[in-house]
């Protein structure tokens, strides 16, 4: 009997299934149309079809991982629970006031994101704890019951509870949850200390409310999916990816759905990271360019950068997530000339339908894809392996009109669109690298998504990134990532602590307590002892600053060395980010963190034998491609990615086509196929 791992990435248009046979390392890919009304149909059906086709009856599924956009879509479309909220007295409007800033500095018509709990469902109870834990007011059972009755009468199906300083003393939140649960039956109840036990009340509140908003949605979704998977013969405990790039069981996801809002994009990062790792590369910048948006992130020494301060669809979320920066520009983004005569690309997009002008489905405004078709970097006759006919003439017409307004010729205008897109991508990458103290030149760019490989070389040149890796299947990297993802649970607690002699015991104890929680989680998830791994870190600052730097502790040092390790780690991080340290200033820890991993075996992806540098066997033709570098159309060889073998080498300029993507190799650049069939692009000397 063969054992298989199954990854399913459920997107808006397609559901991708990726299978891996553990013994042989054999990989199989299957794509089915998504079923947006009930995604679980396509997921379970697609998985079954793929298993039948590639694995046969006797296959045993030992792992099932799933990436989903259910949470993020519910948030975008504001289709979530009817929430009631209970806060400390005097603070029911905090959710609405937030940080008190307006959404746009100059635009008088801008609006704040819709408040997820209307004011009449935000109630206060007499409750107050102070920063040192002193109790000013304790909520009475009568007040709690009255509030719960009121919310029950308003028909809420989720309850969020957030009190000041609950990270320090959760007693009051627990009390309210307990009493309210009796009144509210099986309503989804969530407390801020359980969702994110960290200081800064608005961000904690916002996270808790989003958790409540998603609670019933995710619970309902998973309760549909689980039996369907069982029916499809998948008996193993299914897992779902979180925004931090690790997986959790359906049960944990049902309690903390807010941790899954970036489930999809984070899986792509893991897929990129593991693909690069297999190729021996640990420092990468991921570049996932799709039709309407582009996600970039940075991975250092095999660890994605995570953040706990992100804003998703307008809502601050204080949960660990991979630090993914999104730009509203992709292949379908529309190019236009603004009132001052400058060329702008995006954020408007032609989407999948009608799509770019060259699809001939009715759109008349030129897009990034049209520019690539005019320049013939993209196949000017057909895309998607022949499934999508292309009308280059229409793209030429649309870009010609734009060219007239710019005062440039058509080819320069098309090239201009690409330059503007490249500049905005470069800017996004600077945000996640330079702005966080990392030099992009030390990283390898991993390009995926439909449009990533097309723009990666120019982007790399702009940022002086020496090397680009294009995975074998850039379009299904997310599904592949699911097969390679560790279980992960992030734990944290805010304990404000000055780093002086007396702090040793308390710091040690804070970590010890988190470690205890982590062990309990390992038990619940059934992680074997030899597969458990803990990574400790602390959020620290000079006493007086208000933004903490996250300082990883390579090893959870013994009590005696702990303070020294914290101090030197912090000083190094401060020096790197800000260029100075302040030795006479006291340092304080604000939040202690532990990441708990349940390691899964990384399947050995099969390595192909070296077939030598000659790529002639994969050459399928030649076409004229406009290269602004040479200011002309130049005859470029076209290669079929399917036929490229390990060891093959291509000198630019050249184009490599495959079903779901196209890779451009620039003049002065070479592309080599590595043993895992990744395409590795490098600039030669003097390029």
């Amino acid at each position: 009997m063969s054992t298989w791992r199954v990854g399913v990435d459920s997107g808006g248009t397609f559901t991708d299934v990726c299978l891996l046979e553990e013994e042989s390392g054999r990989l199989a890919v299957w794509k089915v149309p998504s079923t947006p009304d009930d995604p679980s149909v396509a997921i379970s059906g697609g998985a079954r079809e793929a298993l039948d086709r590639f694995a046969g009856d006797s296959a045993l599924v030992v792992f099932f991982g799933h990436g989903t956009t259910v949470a993020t879509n519910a948030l975008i479309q504001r289709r979530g629970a009817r929430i009631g909220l209970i806060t400390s007295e005097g603070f029911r409007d905090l959710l609405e006031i937030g940080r008190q800033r307006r959404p746009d500095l100059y635009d008088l018509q801008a609006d704040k994101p819709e408040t997820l709990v209307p004011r009449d469902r935000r109630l206060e109870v007499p409750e107050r704890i102070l920063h040192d834990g002193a109790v000013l007011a304790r909520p009475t059972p009568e007040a709690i019951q009255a509030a719960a009755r009121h919310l029950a009468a308003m028909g809420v199906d989720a309850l969020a509870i957030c009190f000041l300083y609950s990270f320090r003393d959760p007693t009051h939140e627990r009390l309210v949850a307990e009493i309210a649960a009796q009144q509210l039956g099986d309503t989804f109840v969530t407390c801020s200390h359980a969702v994110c036990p960290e200081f800064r009340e608005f961000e904690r509140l916002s996270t808790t409310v989003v958790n409540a908003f998603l609670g019933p949605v995710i619970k309902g979704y998973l309760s549909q999916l689980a039996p369907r998977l069982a029916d499809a013969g998948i008996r193993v405990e299914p897992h779902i990816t979180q925004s931090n790039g690790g997986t959790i069981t359906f049960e944990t996801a049902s309690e903390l759905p807010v941790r899954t809002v970036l489930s999809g994009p984070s899986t792509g990062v893991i897929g990129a990271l593991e693909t690069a790792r297999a190729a021996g590369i640990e420092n990468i910048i991921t570049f996932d360019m799709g039709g309407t948006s582009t996600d970039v992130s940075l991975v250092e020494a095999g660890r994605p950068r995570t953040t706990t301060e992100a804003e998703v669809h307008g809502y601050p979320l204080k949960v660990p997530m991979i630090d993914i920066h999104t730009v509203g520009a992709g292949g379908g983004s529309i190019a236009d000339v603004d009132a001052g005569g400058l060329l702008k690309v995006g954020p408007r997009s032609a989407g999948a339908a009608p799509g770019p002008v060259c699809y001939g489905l009715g759109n008349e405004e030129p897009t990034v894809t049209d520019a690539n078709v005019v320049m013939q970097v993209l196949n000017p006759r057909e895309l998607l392996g022949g499934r999508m006919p292309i009308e280059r003439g229409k793209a030429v017409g649309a870009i010609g009109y734009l060219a007239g307004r710019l005062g440039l010729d058509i080819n320069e205008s098309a090239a201009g669109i690409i330059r503007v897109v490249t500049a905005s991508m470069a800017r996004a990458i600077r945000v996640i690298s330079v702005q966080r103290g990392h030099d992009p030149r030390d990283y390898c760019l991993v390009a995926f998504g439909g449009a990533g490989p097309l723009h990666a070389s120019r982007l790399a040149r702009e940022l002086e990134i020496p090397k680009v890796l294009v995975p074998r299947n850039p379009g299904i990297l997310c599904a592949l990532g699911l097969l390679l993802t560790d279980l992960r649970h992030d734990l944290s607690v805010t304990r404000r602590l000055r780093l002086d002699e007396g702090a040793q015991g308390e710091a040690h104890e804070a970590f010890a307590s988190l470690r205890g929680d982590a062990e309990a989680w390992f038990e619940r998830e059934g992680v074997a002892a030899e597969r458990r791994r803990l990574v400790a870190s602390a959020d620290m600052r000079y006493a007086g600053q208000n933004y903490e730097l996250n300082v990883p502790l390579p090893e959870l040092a013994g009590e005696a060395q702990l303070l020294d390790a914290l101090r030197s780690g912090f000083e190094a991080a401060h020096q790197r980010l800000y260029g100075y340290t302040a030795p006479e200033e006291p340092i304080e820890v604000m939040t202690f963190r532990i990441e708990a991993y349940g390691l899964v075996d990384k399947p050995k992806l099969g390595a192909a034998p070296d077939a030598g540098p000659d790529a002639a066997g994969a050459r399928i033709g030649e076409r004229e491609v406009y290269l602004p570098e040479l200011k002309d159309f130049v005859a470029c060889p076209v290669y079929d990615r399917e036929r490229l073998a390990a060891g093959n080498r291509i000198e630019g300029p050249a184009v490599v086509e495959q079903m779901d993507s196209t890779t451009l190799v620039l003049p002065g650049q070479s592309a080599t196929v590595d043993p895992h069939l990744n395409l590795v692009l490098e600039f030669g000397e003097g390029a």
Partner: protein
Amino acid sequence: MNDGAKGGNWTVDPVTVEVIGNAISSIAEEMGETLIRASYSTNIKERRDCSTVLFDAQGRTLYQAEHIPIHLGSLMGVVEAILERFPADQIREGDVFIGNDAYTGGGTHLPDIVLASPIYHEGALAGWATNLAHHADFVDRGHDHIYQEGLRIPPIRLQRAGELQQDVLDLILLNCQVPRERLNDLRAQLAANRFGIQRFQALCARYGTDFLNRVFDELLDYAERRMRAGIAEIPDGTYEFEDSFDADELDEALNFRLRLTVRGDEMDLNFIDIPPQVRAGLNLVETALLATAYYAVKTVVDPSAPPNAGLFRPITVSAPYGSILNSAPPGAVNGRTNTCQRVVDLVHGALAQAVPERLVAACNGAVTSATFTGTNPRTGEFYVYLETLGGGFGARASKDGLDGVQVHVTNTSNLPVEGLEPEYPLIVERYELVRDSGGPGQWRGGMGIRRQIRAIDHQCRMFIYGTREESAPWGLFGGLEGGRYRLERDPGVAPLVSGVGELAPGQSVAVVTPGAGGYGPPERRDQALVRRDLAEDRISPETARRAYGIEYGEESDVAAKAGR
């Protein structure tokens, strides 16, 4: 869209201009992030009361990172002021200038300390990295004239050819009440400029300064074209508007009048009959007036035009020298932003007659500030806690105004309660929206904020400044006015005098900020929206009846009281 491009006589292709423009704005924004993250005073680190700007070698604004509009004025004259004092050949690589004086130092009030660093490429001056941060210091001072308001610093060197001038630093720190915070904020400011210099130099190395200068010309011309195209869409004519300005420091409210003329693609703002400058910290220096006027015009003409010096060109602004809107030394200026907000109200009131669909009713019209100081009994150290409070944002032509936000010339964040209380001996008792403060109308004005603060175990001095206590934020086209500013004092707390008062241990004060005006007659408001506002306790049953003519009957159950 339009053929603006034809107006452009590009010497560099428009794509390159866009690409370099992107690089410049990202440098300024990254400088801002560095400053906010590394700084110490709550005012900078949490409330983001700071700005970063890149200038070209001549001192023209290339880009301001979008934090606080009024800072555009603060930084506007700084490079010119430096170049006036120091011939270019006396300025060296590694110099950093510091200044704060409203009349000579590039600031608009003394707490805003500016650091300006020349950027050199191949031995020649290529640009300036500058930043400004509002230091929460110089408290409990007088405001009869600027000498009382703090230390005046003309632009002088804090760093000379890379070497910190310790004597200058010592002099400044001795004049500050919280010197440790000041020192560490200045370190963060230095770090921000260092970062800006490195990135700008990388740009120079790549493109060459001659080429960059041509691109900078293009960037400014581009902003100018955008503004001109926008002004041209506004009907020609002269539009007048008058409003009143009150403050605790004034004996009586003052009247301001604006005559605004649109002619083709240019706009003239003439502030007339403006009262003489006052012996209170309410005067604007010229750069503060200009920054405010440019802000107000930009919001109506083209909110997304790049914030560089080109956008100023089609706009002329004048106010009598020696008046409260264009003061002469030694006029005091500390609380200038309340006055600035009224200037915006004037510009918006005038333009509402020309392009009603683009305008909003009067916003809260204030930068309500509350500063608490004293000796922290937990540490024995002197503390300063400064907060500015948002309020209502005016109703729009097709939607309600925003509740509880900062408006116009400011956009600072609040300080989280869980960040504030561990640091200062104060308790925040409530932080909420104020019922009935949103001006009724077809579209309702935004609601004001109530923030109540209690002093713990110490005698606390407070300095609370606001406006719109007498005149309320006005409505537009039949919309009614919004709620007014007021203080709610515990029994036993004496009324404040010119904004200054005291809290004994255990006493509290609540600051109630103004709401905003409504847009269109209230009787045209959708009844469902009135009922929603009533159910959500945003309006009282009485307002529903009086302003909207809706009897509430059974719907009056005031939900929020249920749990209390």
